[in-house]
């Protein structure tokens, strides 16, 4: 059951990454054509656009969701590769715990950064 659950979340995280990376590409690289997300006549990395996104609760949430999805997807993939080296049962458990701790730690740090920059931008 555990492997079925982990694999399903791996697939789900992949779909989330696909959607949000698509959004990232649209905003950062093809918005000069689309003209949907940035101020007219400006670049995506102009200060005004950066601050607009930083003030947006929508973008703050997407950063956190994308971070969670990318961390889970990447770390589960790394776990799969490491497990192919055929470690013993104890080492497998240790690797799973280590990767979970690393993932949760990085997710906490990234969430704090997204939340803090959201608050800073709104204070400006």
């Amino acid at each position, binding site marked *: *059951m*555990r*492997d*079925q*659950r*982990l*694999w*399903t979340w791996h*697939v789900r995280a992949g779909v989330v990454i696909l959607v949000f990376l698509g959004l990232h590409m649209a905003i950062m690289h093809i918005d000069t054509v689309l003209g949907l997300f940035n101020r007219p006549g400006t670049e995506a990395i102009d200060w005004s656009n950066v601050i607009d996104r930083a003030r947006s609760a929508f973008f703050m949430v997407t950063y956190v969701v994308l971070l969670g999805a990318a961390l889970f997807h990447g770390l589960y993939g790394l776990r*799969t590769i490491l*497990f*192919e*080296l*055929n470690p013993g049962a104890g080492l497998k458990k240790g690797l799973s715990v280590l990767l979970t701790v690393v993932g949760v730690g990085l997710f906490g740090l990234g969430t704090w950064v997204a939340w803090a920059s959201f608050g800073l931008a709104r204070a400006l």
Partner: protein
Amino acid sequence: MVATNALSEVIFRVRRFDPAADAAPRWEEHRLPYTLGMTVLDGLKRLKETIAPGLAWRSSCRMGVCGSCGMFINGRARLACNTQITELGTHVVMVAPLPNFDTIRDLVPDLVPMFDAHQALMPYVIRGDRDEMTIPTGEFAQSAHELEQFLQFSYCIRCGCCMAACPTYATDPRYSGPMPLAQAHRYNADTRDDGFSARRTVLAGEAGPWRCHYAGECSRVCPKGVDPAKAIQLMKRELVLDYLRLRRERCPAEVAAKPAGIKRRDGIPEAPKPTI
């Protein structure tokens, strides 16, 4: 392909190993005259008859049906009976037992782990109506389209070539391997079967299809043209849909109604009673 008229002699390099006498496997080289239509199995038989009487391997039907003579021939898992010498493109034939299995002796692999994994996945029709299974009253109805969903997987002869080619099975002994997984899918996809939940107890864990990273070697080497890699991907999809509660539950096929209004012609005897 080597032209048959260019081939007069075949060099057989055969891996020998007797655990009772040898510390490690060794290679033996023998020369045999080529005869038209010679398969690797023919060559091995000739070797045993003339030069190496102690050479051991498994074979039975010599026509690619029984799945006994899976061997590692010139770097690829194949059926010895189904492999023409001329197909190999060289006059040197290297024969070893299937990799990823222990060797019992010479070219005889220990396939017990494969059949244990196969058995654990319940490769048979499971239904709730035990009375009908024990004393059948008719045939279960199945359309041609429903048959197509699993037909190719039922051509598997359990030769173990796919298991020998699988890089995941080589490194993870808990992984069931392509043959048992493809056979589990074969029954999960069969509309007469209702055993998905029972098989899921094994498939959802470490023995399931999750470690497969789609190298596709199992499908490439299968001598019967079965596509176990496809079965494994289809099984993953079923299990993901099952976890998301999106899998369409189905009732197992009912017993088909007997055709009405048909009379037996005179002189045609009754069919014998079912023996199973």
